[in-house]
C-alpha cells in the first residue's frame, strides 16, 4: 500500500496493478484503433486482437478487471473514432458484452485441460453472436443475412484460435510476477 500523501494536491492512490491495468487497457485501445483503420474484406470480420488483452487480464488479474478493460476499450475507442452510439459502436458493445458473458462462465473450466485457446474461441463465437443479433435485430432486420452467418462464424473460429494461441504465448513469456505485489 502506498503511503498517505504529504502534499496538498489531490493524489489518487494507485497500486502497481493499477498501472499495469491502465497500460494494458491503453494497449487494447491501440489494437482496437489499428483494426478499425485496417481494411477488411467483409464488414465485421476482424481479428479482434484486443481480445488478447482481455484474456491476458483475466488470467493475470480477475474477471472484474478483464470486464473493466474490455468495456473501457469499447467506450474509449468509440469516442476516439467518433462513432459513439453509432451502429459500429453498438456492434462493438454487443460483441464485448456477450464475449464477457461467455468468459464469465468459461473461467471456471479446469485450467489443466482448457487453456486460453478455449476461452478465446468461446469468446470469439459469443462476440460474433452478439454482433449478428444486433445486425438482425436492429440494423437490417428484413434482409436475409443468414447466409453470411457461416462465414462470420468460420472467421470467429480461425481468429479465436489464433488469439488464444497468442494469449498462451504472452502468458508464457510473461511469467507471473504479481504474487510478491499481492502479498
Amino acid at each position, binding site marked *: 500500500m502506498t503511503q498517505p500523501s504529504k502534499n496538498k494536491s489531490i493524489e489518487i492512490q494507485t497500486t502497481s496493478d493499477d498501472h499495469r491495468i491502465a497500460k494494458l487497457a491503453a494497449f487494447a485501445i491501440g489494437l482496437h484503433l489499428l483494426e478499425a483503420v485496417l481494411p477488411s474484406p467483409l464488414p465485421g470480420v476482424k481479428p479482434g486482437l484486443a481480445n488478447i488483452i482481455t484474456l491476458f487480464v483475466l488470467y493475470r488479474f480477475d474477471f472484474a478487471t478483464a470486464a473493466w478493460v474490455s468495456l473501457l476499450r469499447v467506450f474509449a475507442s468509440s469516442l476516439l473514432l467518433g462513432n459513439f452510439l453509432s451502429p459500429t459502436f453498438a456492434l462493438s458493445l454487443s460483441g464485448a458484452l456477450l464475449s464477457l458473458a461467455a468468459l464469465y462462465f468459461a473461467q471456471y473450466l479446469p485450467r489443466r485441460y482448457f487453456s486460453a*485457446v478455449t476461452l478465446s474461441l468461446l469468446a470469439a463465437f459469443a462476440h460474433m453472436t452478439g454482433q449478428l443479433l444486433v445486425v438482425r435485430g436492429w440494423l437490417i432486420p428484413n434482409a436475409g443475412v443468414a447466409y453470411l452467418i457461416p462465414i462470420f462464424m*468460420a472467421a470467429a*473460429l*480461425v481468429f479465436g*484460435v489464433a488469439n488464444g*494461441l497468442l494469449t498462451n504465448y504472452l502468458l508464457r513469456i510473461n511469467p507471473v510476477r504479481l504474487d510478491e505485489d499481492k502479498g
Partner: protein
Amino acid sequence: MRLLVLIFALFLSACGKESLVQTKSYVFGTLVDISIYGETEDKAHEVTSHILQDFQRLHRQYHAWQSDSELSTLNKRFAAGKTPVEMSPELTQMLTQAQTLSKQSQGLFNPAIGGLISIWGFQRDEFTPVEINDMAIQKLVQANPQMSDIVIKNNTAYSTNSTVKLDLGGYAKGYALDLAITELQKQGVKNALVNIGGNIIALGKHGDKPWRVGIQHPREPKPMATLDLPSGWAVGTSGDYQRYFEQAGKRYCHIIDPRNGYPALGTQAVTVLIAPSPQAGVLSDVASKPIFLSAPDQRALAAKAMGVEHYLVVDAESNIRLSASMSGRVHWLTKPEKITVQ
C-alpha cells in the same frame, strides 16, 4: 492447430464444388433442361453444351418435316420406289430399334404413319385446327404403312409400301436421352438429370437424395405427384394435353391411333417409369403410346408387351389407374379422389 485450420479450409473448398448447374434451352421444338450435380460450373457448362450440340444435330438430321433432313430424304425415296437408300449407321441402328419396338407393340407404336400425322396438322411448329379430311385418312389407313414394310440391309433401306413416311417424333427424344447418358458417362459426370420435353432420365443422385421429378397433372397447371428417379431410370408421359387442337368442342390430340387414323380418345395421360437399360430413354418415349392407345382392359397387356412394369394412367374421366409397382413409388402432391391399383 494449423492442421485443423488446414482441414477446415479443405472442407470449405470441397463444399464449394458441390453445386447444381441447371441449363434450360430449346431443342427439338421443346424445352431441354439439363441438371448436373457435383461438378465444377465450368465442367458442367462444357458437358451441357456438348450434349446440346448432339441434340441439335439429331434434331436437324432426323427432322420429320424439314425437307433437307436425312429422314426427309429417306421418306422421299421410300415414296418414289423400292431402290435401297444409303443411310448413316446411326439411322440404321435407330430404324432397326424402332422396328423391333413397333413389332413388340403390335403396331401401336408406329413411326411409319408420318402421313397421318401430317394430315392432322401435327407436323408443324404450331397447332391450329385443320379441316378433317376423312377420305385421305381412310385411304392412308387402308394403305397401312408399317415399320415392317421397311427392309433394312447393310446400312441401306427401302420400303415395300410407298405410303411409309417416317416421323420419329415419338422416338427421337428418347434416343437423345440414351445418347446424353452415354455422353455424360464418357465425360466422367456422375450425377445428372436430363429432361427433353418432359421425358427424363437420371444419372446418379442429387446430392444425398435421388433425383426427384414432378408428374404434370393432365388438366391442371400443376404437378399432381412426384417420383424418385434412381440412377439409370427414365420416365416419360404421353398426354392429350401436350399437343392438341380443339374443334367444335372436341379435343384432337397429337397421339394418332394407327388402327383408325384418328387421335386417341379415352385417355388423358400415360406415364411410364423405365428401369435402367441401354434403351431406357427410348422406352420412356415409346412405351407410353401403346398403353395410351389400348382399351382399358388391354392396358396391362400392352404394358407387359413393352416390358413396362411401372405405369400410371389418367383416363378420360380423370380416374387414376396404376400398376401395383408404380403405386409404391408415386408420392401424391394432391391426393386424387379415385385411385385404382391394377
